[in-house]
């Protein structure tokens, strides 16, 4: 491996990449479109009803029933009832619900005394939640028929809740990273067919050097796409991710180890692909199941249990989990395992592919 040659080819590859129309499109414009699309669908406000979690810590009463009826009748909310005794914060996190309302044990007795308190759980700085707070208060007053009573809200801040759009940031990063598979599955058989590898070998550029330069290229371009997604998320949609320096650094490590793994998968698939027609079949067969089952577009928990088993067999799942742990929950501890898994699997697949590549060289 010669670093000078790798960089020489990297520069060449990058230059040629920008001569294609589709290259820059998928690098810059497509992530922008995706992020704007997902941001507008799932960003603050959103469409349809806002989910709220409601918990009653006291006895059931007409006041409680009245409030729930008012929530439902407003058409603004879809109400999830949290059983008494369960931790509402965990419930909200698990179900991606941004707003929680808790009627304390003494609510019914207090409201009959014309003064009561409800707890309002939300992420600090969540625009939607603060806009909806007076609305919910009003609905409680109407629902309990106590328009003359005073109901105070006790604000409870929940961190790490995030908005739906937050959830999609790690997912979109996952999307950008499996894009490399597509390029590999097309490029490898094409280069073999056109005998580009042979011609490059005359310049002393070996297959491992080609691979290193190409992987470096994907690393740089993926990071660029990801910075764009991240930047739009933060500046346009106000995403509230856990952004700390260690978090960002760790995310970069996750992205790079994911890249290693997915490039290796792409390479392996590319080596088994004979021509361009089968390339699209192979690429899509790998790409779409991962996209739909690995928690990119919706949480794995909504899948039926047998599909969840499949999901946990897909490498992208681990990438998504790792990024979510970091960016959504600021939880670094289990990420290490996911990184190690991706790096080891990536190296293993690379080793296997280069063994295969040298063996296939001479057919």
């Amino acid at each position, binding site marked *: 491996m010669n670093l000078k040659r790798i960089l020489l080819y990297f520069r060449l590859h990058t230059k040629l990449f920008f*001569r294609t129309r589709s290259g820059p499109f998928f690098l810059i414009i497509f992530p922008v479109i995706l992020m704007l699309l997902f941001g507008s669908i799932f960003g603050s406000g959103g469409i349809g009803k806002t989910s709220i979690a409601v918990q009653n810590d006291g006895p059931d009463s007409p006041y409680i029933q009245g409030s729930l009826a008012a929530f439902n009748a407003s058409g603004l909310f879809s109400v999830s009832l949290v059983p008494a005794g369960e931790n509402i914060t965990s419930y909200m996190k698990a179900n991606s619900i941004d707003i929680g309302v808790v009627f304390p044990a003494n609510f019914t007795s207090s409201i009959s005394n014309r003064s009561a308190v409800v707890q309002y759980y939300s992420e600090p700085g969540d625009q939607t939640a603060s806009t909806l707070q007076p609305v919910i208060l009003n609905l409680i007053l109407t629902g309990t028929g106590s328009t003359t009573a005073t109901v105070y809200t006790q604000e409870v801040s929940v961190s790490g809740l995030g908005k739906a759009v937050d959830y999609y940031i790690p997912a979109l990063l996952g999307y950008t990273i499996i894009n490399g598979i597509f390029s590999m599955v097309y490029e490898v058989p094409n280069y073999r067919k056109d005998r580009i590898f042979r011609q490059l070998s005359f*310049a002393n550029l070996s297959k491992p050097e080609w691979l290193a330069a190409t992987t470096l290229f994907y690393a740089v371009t993926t990071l660029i796409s990801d910075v764009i997604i991240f930047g739009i998320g933060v500046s346009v949609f106000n995403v509230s991710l856990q952004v700390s320096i260690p978090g960002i650094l760790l995310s970069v490590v996750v992205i790079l180890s994911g890249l290693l793994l997915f490039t290796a998968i792409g390479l392996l698939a590319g080596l088994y692909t004979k021509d361009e027609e089968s390339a699209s079949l192979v690429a899509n067969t790998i790409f779409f199941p991962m996209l739909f089952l690995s928690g990119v577009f919706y949480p794995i928990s909504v899948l039926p249990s047998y599909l969840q088993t499949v999901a946990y067999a897909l490498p992208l799942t681990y990438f998504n989990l790792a990024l979510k742990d970091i960016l959504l929950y600021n939880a670094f501890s289990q990420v290490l395992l996911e990184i190690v898994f991706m790096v080891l699997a990536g190296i293993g697949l690379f080793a296997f592919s280069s063994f295969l590549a040298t063996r296939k060289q*001479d057919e």
Partner: protein
Amino acid sequence: MSEIIKVENLTKRYGTLEAVRGISFHVNAGEVFSLLGPNGAGKTTTVEILEGVRKRTSGHVAVLGYDPEKIDETFRKRVGVLPQDFNFLQRITPLEALEFFIGSLESRMDPVELLKTVDLVDRKDVYFSKLSGGQKQKLGIAIALSNDAELIFLDEPTAGLDPISRKSIQQVMRNLRSLGKTIFLTTHYLEEAEKLADRVAIVNHGIIVDEGTPEELVQKNKTHDTLVVSLARDHATETALPKGLVMKSPGVYEMPVTSNDDLFSVLDSIAKSRIPVDNIYLKRENLEDVFMRVVGVEPDES
């Protein structure tokens, strides 16, 4: 003279097909060596084994002292290659391609000079995919020259080139030879081999059927010269012609010439009979005739 390439009992099998069936030859430093043979004879297979692109099935091969299956980076700096089906990155320009090879092989050649050599300067900034077939081929030749190699493999370098370009590439090969470089040339143009090659090997069905300088091959294999007599236009046939002349096409007669006496007596009688002759010439056998004869015969299976 030192042997720069040495091949002994080389074989190559593709599945059940034995493309090269035990060939031996050597190439001396500083000579132009040409491998000739019909399509599928095993030329490219042999060349690619020497270049280190293909693995051999058996036999012994040494190129610049290397076993081509165990080459290092220096090998590529000392050897230039034009593959038969030369192709490169579709969106690269000739100038960039040469700069890449020069940079990667740490050569001191000037890319623009190389482009001048192959007459491609005015297309230096055009994408590879937009070059014509012959222009692509010229870029391939320039790349083969980009490392200023001492040994250059050219697998059909002039295939697909127009006559003017072909002549100029042949001149390039002559210049390379005068610089002391060794050229391993594969070609289908027999007059090209005859003009350029110091030594020639003819392969057929994976076996070398003959080998030597072009003159040696012609001398060794020629049967006879041929006298050709073509009559003036309005004389399609002529009964007064001497006996040995046989009509090959309307107005064109030929006769094998085995001795000068034969020749003179025929010419004498033509002169005497005053037949209106348009042209008389003696056709000498060349490499092409020898090739046809040598290759037309199935090689010995044993």
